[in-house]
């Protein structure tokens, strides 16, 4: 009888330890949500704009920038249409590096902050080259002009 009771206690302790370890990530992180990252829009190019307008309204850019980039890519690579016109008549070169990154020249504090938070790993920069900005935002310059990071 005694041996059986001891065995039950051991199983109970074992289960408790297992549950504590298995649920560790949940109770350890309880109430400690990662703060939503704040994106830095203060680049020299944006400050110099007469009106702070992107190629689409901010809300649309937040939710649809990836689709817009995909559409731009298709238009340029497959259809040869390189100029984008906004409904209010502003014209842009459909280019990640020559348009987007010219204003958002702070990749680390704009693109990366949110992508790291959301856990997404876009593959843009596997091929495209982060433009070197006058303020020297991009790091690890290769050949002085662009960076392969």
């Amino acid at each position, binding site marked *: 009888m005694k041996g059986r009771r001891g065995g039950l206690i051991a199983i109970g302790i074992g289960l408790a330890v297992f549950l504590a370890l298995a649920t560790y990530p949940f109770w350890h992180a309880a109430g400690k949500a990662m703060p939503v990252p704040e994106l830095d829009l203060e680049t020299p190019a944006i400050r110099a704009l007469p009106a702070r307008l992107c190629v689409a309204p901010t809300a649309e850019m937040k939710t649809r920038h990836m689709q817009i980039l*995909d559409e731009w890519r*298709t238009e340029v690579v497959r259809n*040869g*249409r390189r100029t984008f016109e906004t409904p209010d008549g502003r014209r842009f070169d459909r280019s990640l590096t020559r348009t987007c990154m010219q204003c958002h020249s702070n990749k680390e504090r704009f693109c990366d902050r949110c992508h790291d938070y959301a856990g997404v790993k876009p593959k843009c920069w596997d*091929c495209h080259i982060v433009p070197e900005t006058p303020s020297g935002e991009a790091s690890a310059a290769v050949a002085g002009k662009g960076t*392969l990071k």
Partner: protein
Amino acid sequence: MIDTERRRLLKIAGTLILGSMLPIIPCSASSPGRSASAAGAGRWGMVIDPRKCPAGCRDCIDACHAVHNVPHIAGPGNEIRWIRQVPFQNAFPDQGHPYLDAGRRDVPVLALCNHCENPPCVRVCPTKATFRRSDGIVVMDYHRCIGCRFCIAACPYGSRSMNFRDPRPFIRTVNPDYPTRTRGVVEKCNFCEERLAKGMPPACVEACGKRGALLFGDMTDPSSEIRRLMKDRPTIRRRPELGTDPHVFYIVS
């Protein structure tokens, strides 16, 4: 559809391969896809005059490879080449004979993508990463390439190279205005479509300059420089008997 990225394409391609093992699935043969052109030419083409190439000159090759971030990887197999020099015998295997003028036989010939009217690489590409524009340029959408290398097998001119390794460490001077490629994609000459869109000539033609070994222009315009030259001088093409209708012409006289 078109916005499919590489990773997703790989998944879809895998599913399709598994699917193709099922007994009968009707399969449609697709013709080379054509899409709208960018810079207004009817049909781009090139004329090469090998005898105007000074011995040892590599200006066009260096210019092309610098503009397009082509890596310098030594050794056969791994080498990436958009434009290269090959012996006459290799460029024109059916034109060589024992009595061929030594001056012609020993002059290396520039070889690049022929931007065929009927490109076999386009026909075999399973993801339509390679396609033919309506202005005749055979281009690659590197976003879509899954590295299957069917196009390399299909191209009779050896114009395509595979990135068997990460090309970035092998790029000598990075041109930030043009992307690099990654490991696992094929690449080739694009007739400088990104420069044509800005109204500039191809980098190789610009580098060759006044030597005039390379001429580029609209094949459909009878008054274009390239067509007027072809009127005066006989030209040949590489392996026309294959029916690819190549659009790089070589002056032989």
